[in-house]
């Protein structure tokens, strides 16, 4: 194992967090994960992604190399670049994000051919049959899952080394404003892409007249967005379709309770596979000192380990009842915000995740060399 010199880590992702590429939790996760490793000495990192044109830029001091898409198949998760053969030379470990996609399968084949240790993470982008039933996932040297739920989905296909890292969240950035919590009383916040499986309709449907709801996110499904607008008529609902990071932070700090209502069966009757592998915005909200209400979909219940700062709902009636408690001041208790933030810092913060990630990377590299 290297001691004095740094390990070179490459993160591969089919998209990067930017309006020029894709603004989703999966893309933000890669940024956050790289940042968390920056907190630990002994690593040098680069992020490789795919786009319409070559690009190179720095994000938080980490080079992001965008390679021109060469895929003959449309779709973000089908993007690929054969230049990885050259670009990855010299790296000690490659972390393949969205590993259960065509991008992931293609990248796995190249990284394995280059004999570089490879770690995969499913960020919900697909269920690639070649990686699962075709057992391509076994070519990975390790697997990092973003929740227990996410790990359970792939656990039967991968028996190798794995870890579950929920987060990270930049707890230095997502901080509570110094204000009286009562100033935001009755302000409910929902932050997510506007898509049917995010279950925003359920929040609007359960919202009592005494509470206000702010929905922050870009519409990715026009019909669903129009449906939400219609449902919101006569209620105190505000849509914020464009919000940069500063604006989002400001909105977090002007809210009282955060809701994430993702669902396994959307309002159109569609069953959703992997509805929520990790609720990143829920963790961000908790880092800002917001108590949270989450649905029982996917991994969300894993995020709220204490009902003082988190409530879980299964049905419309459950959510109505929780909202009634909020409106009546019966929940959350005064200490909820502090508890939420403290929990996130110790379990899901950049430093906490960075230390565990570094350990997993080191063990994987050492194991491969042996």
């Amino acid at each position, binding site marked *: 194992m290297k001691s004095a010199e740094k390990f070179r880590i490459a993160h591969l992702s089919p998209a990067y967090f930017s309006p020029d590429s894709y603004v989703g939790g999966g893309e933000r996760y890669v940024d956050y994960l790289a940042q968390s490793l920056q907190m630990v000495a002994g690593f040098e990192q680069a992020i490789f992604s795919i786009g319409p044109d070559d690009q190179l830029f720095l994000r938080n001091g980490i080079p992001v190399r965008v390679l021109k898409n060469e895929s003959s198949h449309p779709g973000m998760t089908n993007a690929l670049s*054969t230049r990885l053969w050259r670009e990855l030379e010299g790296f000690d470990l490659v972390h393949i994000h969205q590993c259960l996609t065509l991008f992931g399968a*293609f990248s796995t084949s190249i990284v394995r051919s280059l004999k570089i240790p490879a770690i995969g993470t499913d960020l919900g982008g697909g269920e690639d049959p070649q990686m699962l039933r075709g057992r*391509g996932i076994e070519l990975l040297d390790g697997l990092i899952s973003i929740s227990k739920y996410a790990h359970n989905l792939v656990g039967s296909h991968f028996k190798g080394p794995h870890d579950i890292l929920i987060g990270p969240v930049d707890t230095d950035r997502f901080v509570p404003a110094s204000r009286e919590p009562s100033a935001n009383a009755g302000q409910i916040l929902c932050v997510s892409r506007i898509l049917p499986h995010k279950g925003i309709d359920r929040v609007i449907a359960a919202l009592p007249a005494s509470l206000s709801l702010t929905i922050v996110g870009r519409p990715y499904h026009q019909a669903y967005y129009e449906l939400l607008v219609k449902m919101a008529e006569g209620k105190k609902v505000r849509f914020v379709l464009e919000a940069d990071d500063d604006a989002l932070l400001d909105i977090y700090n002007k809210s009282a309770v955060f809701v994430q209502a993702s669902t396994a069966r959307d309002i159109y009757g569609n069953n959703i596979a992997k509805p929520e592998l990790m609720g990143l915005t829920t963790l961000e909200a908790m880092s800002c000192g917001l108590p949270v209400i989450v649905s029982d979909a996917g991994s969300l219940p894993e995020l709220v380990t204490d009902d003082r700062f988190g409530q879980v709902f299964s049905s419309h009636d459950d959510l109505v009842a929780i909202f009634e408690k909020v409106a009546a001041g019966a929940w959350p208790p005064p200490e909820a915000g502090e508890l939420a933030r403290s929990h996130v810092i110790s379990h899901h913060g950049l430093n906490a995740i960075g230390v565990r990630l570094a350990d997993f990377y080191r063990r994987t590299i050492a194991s491969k060399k042996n």
Partner: protein
Amino acid sequence: MALRILFLTNLYPPFVIGGYEIACAQTAEAMRSRGHEVQVLTTWSHVPQETKTPEWVRRRLDLHWYVPHMPNQTLEARDLHSAVCSSYSNTLHLLDALTNFRPDVVSAWNLTGIGGLAMMDLLNHVGVPWTLYLGDRVPVDIAANVPADVRGIFNARGGEVYEQARIFSVSQNLLDEIEAESSISFPQGADIVAGWADLSQSLPHQPYLQNGKARFVAASSIGPHKGTELIVEASAQLQSSGVDFSVDIFGEGDVPRYVDMAKRLRLEERVRFLGSLPYTDLLRAYSAYDAFLCPTWERDPFPFAPLGAAGCYTPPILTRNCGTSERLVDGVHCIKIERTTEDLARAMAEVAAGRVDLAKMGRAGRRLIEGDLSFERHLDKMERAFEESARPWEMLDDPKLPLLLFLKHNLSVRLRFG
């Protein structure tokens, strides 16, 4: 130094397309005679005929293209993919051969038809020293028939997959063509190992133009690219000029078409189609002919047959700019022609009229083949190259390698066909 050499080829006698496969077989057998331990990995063939195959020739691979008794146009795109890009079962057989035989060097020949791209990728992956003998434009076939993103799976978007190989080419013409059509230039360099003829079984030549009759012979695949049509048309011109001659054509292919053509031109008594002959029988047969006809297409990399004929004192009449022309001098070892019926007929008429010193030209051809283009000299060159290429390597102990090959194969199919 005795080496363990694994030969990899799409076809192995008795079933061949032409000189490329014969050359491979001759080299393999000769290397064995020189004391090397040789194994050949090739196809089981698609002709239901019993063959005497020695135990060191393993007919394990499936053949997805160039099936001798099936026209190519009946095969579908999927077969083409299996032929030039990836055939999982064939790649696994190669892995087995590498694991069990542990060659010092792998000598790859014509890989078209057996999923050659995936096989070359495997050779690179395990790090075995390997050579590629280019007797035809295999890299162009791959580049032209495999989309770029699919080639990328095997690190072959450009010429990367060839970078670890020692390259031999039968002619500079072929290398130029490969570079022009696929931009692959082999920066590591390529050795020109021209064709040859093994004359050990040849016979002394009989008198030329016996009884005033010119006897021509041709031996190749029967088809337009080899110029069969030109031979029949030129024969018609000679007949109409009252020349006394005959043409015997050996080989297989679209024979009925040319039998009909000869009948239509009233050449049944002049032009005969005699099927294929084993190499050594063919060489013996040349002794009875006055000239060898080879009006092949200009991009024929290196037809071997004219060399065999030249070595048997039977001067070739051949296309001016085919690969073999690089090695023969017009008017000394052969008669070079433009690839037209008229020019072929003119050259045949010159021979029939006795205006060419066939005996002198035959002797010059024999000297050339016994010297620069001798089989022994070729073997020395190849053997030296194998010895230089061989270096210690260890087969990876990677139980997941078949899984990687499986993923790559399936990805290639998926990217190609959706």
